[in-house]
């Protein structure tokens, strides 16, 4: 075990898979020689050379299109879209081409690739470089959607995504890149579609994703220490496949459920999670499920404004206390 940052765990996960499988190649803007604008691919160009780690022009259509063509013909590409906001530029490939090709071809073609992208707020970049768009990806049949919350998961889930025979969108959260934790040395692969239960408590179940996970954990600690509320915290890790077994079991145990979502309110991932819980665990609920989300607004740039709209530890604590009347 070594302490690794989230960003170093990303490159460690990629290196692990590139060493293991010659079909794995990487392409993106500034991803090769420069090591990525977020320094998540540092060292790969030097280790694996320019035929496997390639810089591209600023051409999001060409990046995803080329990755798709390569994936259909025997390679395992990792394509980087620098900011997840830019997925809008190449959404045709995500929504119409990559996700649907296996189905439309009646299984003749497969598209085993990973789209890595930097997601989320915290960098004060404003409305076009800070969005959380995991809910966009979740809405498309045929995609798997992964969003790790810590360095160890980043390595293990990325390795799994690269090995997966289906297309995976892998959201790396910008505000987590510097966070360090113990990351297993050597080959490390986590299964996709398995949520992590990070702490257990009997009063509330808090379901979170990516950067909202450390906030939910911190809120749970304060709720326990200062307000007598003992909460379970679930890190979903993946939106597709969705670990509804874990969600339903822990929702039923406490009967009070909260989602903490960085995506804007309407059609955020929590809406689907809540819908499943109320359909399948209604009789176990002791009160309304509460969604704690970013409001339905474009993200502002100034730090005090951005901090005010993204769910904070204080807001999670306040909303849970209010709902539970404590």
């Amino acid at each position, binding site marked *: 075990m070594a302490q690794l940052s989230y960003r170093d765990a990303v490159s460690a996960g990629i290196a692990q898979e590139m060493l293991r499988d010659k079909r794995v190649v990487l392409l993106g803007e500034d991803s090769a020689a420069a090591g990525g604008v977020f320094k998540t691919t540092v060292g790969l160009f030097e280790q694996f050379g320019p035929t496997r780690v390639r810089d591209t022009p600023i051409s999001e259509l060409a990046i995803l*299109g*080329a990755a798709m063509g390569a994936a259909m013909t025997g390679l395992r590409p990792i394509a980087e879209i620098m900011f997840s906001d830019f997925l809008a530029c190449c959404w045709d490939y995500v929504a119409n081409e990559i996700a649907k090709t296996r*189905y439309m071809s009646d299984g003749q073609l497969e598209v085993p690739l990973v789209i890595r992208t930097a997601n989320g707020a915290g960098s004060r970049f404003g409305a076009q470089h800070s969005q959380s768009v995991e809910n966009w990806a979740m809405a498309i049949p045929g995609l798997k959607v992964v969003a790790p919350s810590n360095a160890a998961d980043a390595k293990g889930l990325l390795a799994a995504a690269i090995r997966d*025979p289906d297309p995976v969108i892998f959201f790396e959260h910008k505000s987590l890149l510097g966070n360090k934790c113990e990351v297993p040395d050597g080959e490390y692969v986590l299964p996709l579609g398995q949520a992590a239960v990070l702490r257990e408590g009997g009063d509330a179940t808090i379901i979170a994703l990516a950067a909202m996970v450390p906030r939910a954990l911190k809120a749970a600690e304060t709720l326990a220490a200062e307000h007598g509320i003992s909460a379970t915290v679930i890190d979903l890790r993946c939106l597709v496949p969705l670990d509804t077994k874990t969600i339903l079991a822990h929702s039923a145990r406490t009967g009070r459920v909260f989602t903490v979502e960085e995506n804007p309110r309407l059609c955020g991932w929590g809406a689907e999670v809540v819908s499943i819980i109320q359909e399948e665990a209604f009789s176990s609920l002791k009160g309304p499920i509460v969604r704690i989300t970013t409001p339905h607004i474009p993200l502002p740039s100034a730090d005090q404004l951005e901090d005010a709209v993204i769910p904070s530890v204080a807001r999670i604590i306040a909303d849970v206390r209010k709902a539970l009347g404590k």
Partner: protein
Amino acid sequence: MSTTRIPEATRLALYRQMMEIRYCEKRAYDLFLQNLVKGTSHLALGQEAVAAGFGVAMNKDDYTFCTYRGHHHTLARGASMLSVLGELMGRQCGLMKGKGGSMHLTSVEHGVMGSYAIVGAHLPVAAGAAWSAQYRGTKQVATAFFGDGATNIGAFHEALNLACVWKLPVVFVCENNGYMEYTPIGSVTAVEHPAADRAASYGLPRILIDGNDADVVYQTACDAFDKARAGGGPSLIECLTYRHSGHSRADPGKYRPKGEVEEWMKKDPVVSYRVRLLEAGVAEVTLDEIDAAAMATLDEATEQAKASPLPEIASAYTDVFADGGAAWRN
């Protein structure tokens, strides 16, 4: 360009391919009228020489990427008329058993890596397949066929640039039939020749050919494939041709000026090639036999497709994911 040395066997293959496409496309139209083909369909009547010329020039393991107007390219790689008509009719015998339809014909065993219905989307995908061939060290070439309208979309330019920078074994073939859907291409494009006039932007030679001349198309295709296999990188080829029918099933093509269709009918690629072969000394009976064999295959395919069962409803829920199913949750 010398096309006189094309062997007779190859020329007969070109003729056979064009006849099969011509008959099959006409039959597809008849089947619409009988309401046996649902949805939409985009016929390639008049554009047969492009498909035949490239299809015959390809190696078996080369990749074809085509558009929603892709019946001709799919047939030209050897997919059966039964599998194509069956897909148009939504039958179990169809190439994708009714899950793709006319606009998404795919036959991987014949190198047809999909038909793409978002204009221009497949050009970068073809570049990616060429990248894969380059990386794996095969001599495969990827060819993307597209209409003149696709030259005004971003993906065209992104694909051309990337393919040239990476020197990929990919051939971009513009079938310029004069119209982007219902609008004359010239009225919405900054240059006269939408593909050829842009070649210089990517450091490529300007290639503008008669897309209704199967010999010329075949020879141009061979040259482009040779260049790509030798590591010389991509080619961009503009083939001048004409769509005999409207854009799609819904379009009678009434926006075309008087006399234009008649002028192009005089340059019908199938009729003119037959005349050329006869002038070159091919016996008429040889061509008649090819015609008859194509029609016999088509008639049999049509009857078999009509008799083919409809897909099982359960198949709508298969092959979303690699495990064969559609499950997004546990």
